[in-house]
């Protein structure tokens, strides 16, 4: 076995990532992958109050599922790898990027030395194995699919852990840069068991202090942290404020200093306020319309013809789906619904991703005339009636209405079915829908935006889409670690998706974070997560 460093992933030091010190809105196609408030000059001490838009689930890296939970984890649970401002993967608790065997099935990870958990116990290869084994075996683990390629984890010496894979799997590194790569204290796992999430103990600039449901999560500076000398704040208090107006008002009043999700409608007001600054980064995810092509019996079941009440040429004739897409004016949707603050999107990969390509960003022009012609060719009677589930929120309804008005010009009679989120997931999993407006928060490795949704066996393929050519391309992209080759393969997948249209991609949100100007050193990357390791109050 000849180990070779994974050269395709270029490491860029995570320090000094102040490349995007600007925090202006960028609505151009290129966008920006990261933003930071001015760095340096932070004085020691103080409590930073951060408003979160939702209540995180248990703070257990093995079972955690929410995006807001990931925000809190950036403070208390570091990972084997992290991303940097350019969305490349860099070591965090690992000493270096992993060594991968020639056959791609053995991944050797060196663990950083001299690292202690928040409870004072040492982090070593055995601790990494304990966490990975838990991720692989705990019945309620949400990491099983992330680590599905891992067959066994072994420890060769106190600083080396080896992952034995069933087959080469390039996206694994990105998974280890997310919750699957978080290392939990074995001592705390032993004492807390399944309730670890109520009192999490990991490695991070801060350690968990307390949590009151629906109110706050407090984390305090961890003296055991390996880089504690550079941590300025005494405490970060995450306050849960669901309503966007209330959240914004709290930022303006100074009751909170950082706001994780600024609504597009509040962006102008925030920029006009001299006491506040705005951090912007492009999301790695997307929003789109999932079309039910063959999910007749529920997710995970073989694709089949839809029952009579749902069956329509929309599911069976790609020309009808193309007509629907040509009726859409994505830029107008962005302007009308989001004040032009987001970006139109026609595919699952962010233009900032190193895996993006011309094929991945190809986008048809708005052409309702051609849409009508296509409907005529398909032999359907206009106006063509079709139902779409939308979120029963003000934004969801507004988006639905904008789409409804546009596709009318193309010959469609779109009926909106506003549905509460949990119920809509139930309905669409069961296959009880025609179209569904939904999004995905996005992953660093585009595989996380594609394979689960459009491969035949994909765990979230709720549209019953199946195409052996796409399955093959996805499989090839997973087994090579050559990034250029992967980018090409992703481009080919997306070209095929543009022909079949199981998902009609609409737009890509931007992550807007509001920060009081008294606070410096807050970092935000394309993953939309705020990092407070170097944050502090201006001196």
């Amino acid at each position, binding site marked *: 076995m000849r180990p070779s460093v994974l050269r395709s992933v270029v490491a860029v030091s995570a320090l000094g990532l102040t490349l995007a010190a600007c925090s202006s809105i960028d609505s151009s196609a290129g966008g920006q992958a990261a933003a930071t408030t001015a760095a340096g000059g932070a004085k020691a001490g103080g409590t930073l109050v951060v408003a979160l838009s939702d209540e995180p689930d248990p703070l257990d890296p093995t079972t955690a*599922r929410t995006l807001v939970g990931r925000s809190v984890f950036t403070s208390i649970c570091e990972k084997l790898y992290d991303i940097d401002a350019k969305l490349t993967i860099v070591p965090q608790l690992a000493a270096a990027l992993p060594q991968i065997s020639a056959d791609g099935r053995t991944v050797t990870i060196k663990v950083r030395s001299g690292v202690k958990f928040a409870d004072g116990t040492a982090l070593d290869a055995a601790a990494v194995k304990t966490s990975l084994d838990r991720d692989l075996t705990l019945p309620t683990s949400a990491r099983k699919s992330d680590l599905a390629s891992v067959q066994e984890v072994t420890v060769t010496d106190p600083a080396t852990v080896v992952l034995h894979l069933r087959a080469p799997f390039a996206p694994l590194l990105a998974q280890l840069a997310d919750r699957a790569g978080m290392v939990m204290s074995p001592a705390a796992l032993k004492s807390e068991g399944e309730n670890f999430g109520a009192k999490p103990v990991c490695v991070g600039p801060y350690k968990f202090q307390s949590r009151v449901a629906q109110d706050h999560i407090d984390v305090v500076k961890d003296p055991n942290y390996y880089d504690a000398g550079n941590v300025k704040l005494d405490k970060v208090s995450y306050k849960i404020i669901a309503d966007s107006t209330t959240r914004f008002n709290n930022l303006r009043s100074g009751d909170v200093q950082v706001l994780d999700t600024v609504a597009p409608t509040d962006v102008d007001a925030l920029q006009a306020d001299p006491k506040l600054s705005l951090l912007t980064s492009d999301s790695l995810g997307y929003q789109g319309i999932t079309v039910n092509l063959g999910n007749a019996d529920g997710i995970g079941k073989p694709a089949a013809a839809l029952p009579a009440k749902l069956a329509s040429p929309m599911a069976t004739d790609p020309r009808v789906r193309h007509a629907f897409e040509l009726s859409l004016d994505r830029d107008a949707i962005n302007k009308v619904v989001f004040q032009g603050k987001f970006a139109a999107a026609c595919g699952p990969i962010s233009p900032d991703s190193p895996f993006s390509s011309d094929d991945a960003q190809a986008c048809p022009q708005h052409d309702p005339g051609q849409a009508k012609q296509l409907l005529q060719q398909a032999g359907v009677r206009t106006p063509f009636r079709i139902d779409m589930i939308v979120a029963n929120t003000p934004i969801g309804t507004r988006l639905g209405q904008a789409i409804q008005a546009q596709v009318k010009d193309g010959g469609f009679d779109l009926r909106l079915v506003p549905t509460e989120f949990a119920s809509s997931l139930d309905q669409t999993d069961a296959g009880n829908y025609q179209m569904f407006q939904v999004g995905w928060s996005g992953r660093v490795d585009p595989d996380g935006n594609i394979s689960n949704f459009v491969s035949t066996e994909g765990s979230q393929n709720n549209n019953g889409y199946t195409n052996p050519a796409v399955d093959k391309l996805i499989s090839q992209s997973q087994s090579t670690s050559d990034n250029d080759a992967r980018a090409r393969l992703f481009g080919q997948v997306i070209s095929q998706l543009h022909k079949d249209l199981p998902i009609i991609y609409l737009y890509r949100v931007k992550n807007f974070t509001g920060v009081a100007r008294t606070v410096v050193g807050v970092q935000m990357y394309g993953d939309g997560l705020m990092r407070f390791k170097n944050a502090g109050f201006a001196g």
Partner: protein
Amino acid sequence: MGRYLIPRLLESVVTFVLVTIVVFIGVRALPGDPARALAGEESTPEQLAAIRHSFGLDQPVPVQYLRYVGNALHGDLGRSSRTGLPVADSIGHALPVTLQLAVFAIAVAALIGVGAGVVAAVRRRGPAEWAANSVALLGLSVPSFWLGLMGVLVFAIAYPVLPASGYVSVFADPYESFRHLLMPAVVLGSGLAAVVMRQTRSAMIEALGTDYVRTAKAKGLSGGQVVIGHALRNSLIVVTTIVGLQLGGLISGAVVTEQIFVLPGFGKLIIDAVFTRDYPMIQGVVLVTATAYIGINLLVDLLYSVIDPRVRVGGTVL
């Protein structure tokens, strides 16, 4: 006494069991799988099955119910499926917040309502009555969420004298607690203040026309003594009854106020629990509420029997 007490106790137990069954079946009849609500965008059928298993949702409903009641009798209300925190702890944190807010709101309502009502009654057909009536009408017709948002914009942003959100326990820091709860209490109490004002005004007008007030005036008592010492004192019986009846309404009305001012209270707890299909939390909250209502009703029934012996002899008040 026993012949009266035992059936009342049995009644309470039956009511309690019925409430828990209705709630248990009710939350399960909500559309939306709690496992799906919990798993969010990331879920595979295997993970959903594992979540259902971990919360016992794969068991038949009667088994789930008996297990729940068994645990509840031991004081264990389970863990929230959303946060993983013990339900009893969350309720323990939320209940004092809402109670404190409700009591404060009543105090605000009584102060404003009684004051304005007295002025309106004493200075009838003058500018004072007109002003008091206008304030009452405004208090009744302005939605609390709007009033709350305006309050924040004015008193927390434009003139930052009060905090925009948050809760501080009265036991931890009474002054900060007062500052944090003042705006929410005024917003929540404004509607009630209007009701109190109208009731006080009509009761006062009636009282001011009675013989004992005329007698008091004839005896040479000052205007203030007549109004405060005689007329108001008698009018307060009606007002107190109204305020008491409104307490339950205030606690449910607190839901909106708690959202605007980010108070971690009971209302916010149950609303969030319903949206995330957090069965253990919904059940816990309803269980505690039902226990409180049943307990208070039982206590009132017992007090009736102490106050009026005919209740326990005949079973009904004649």
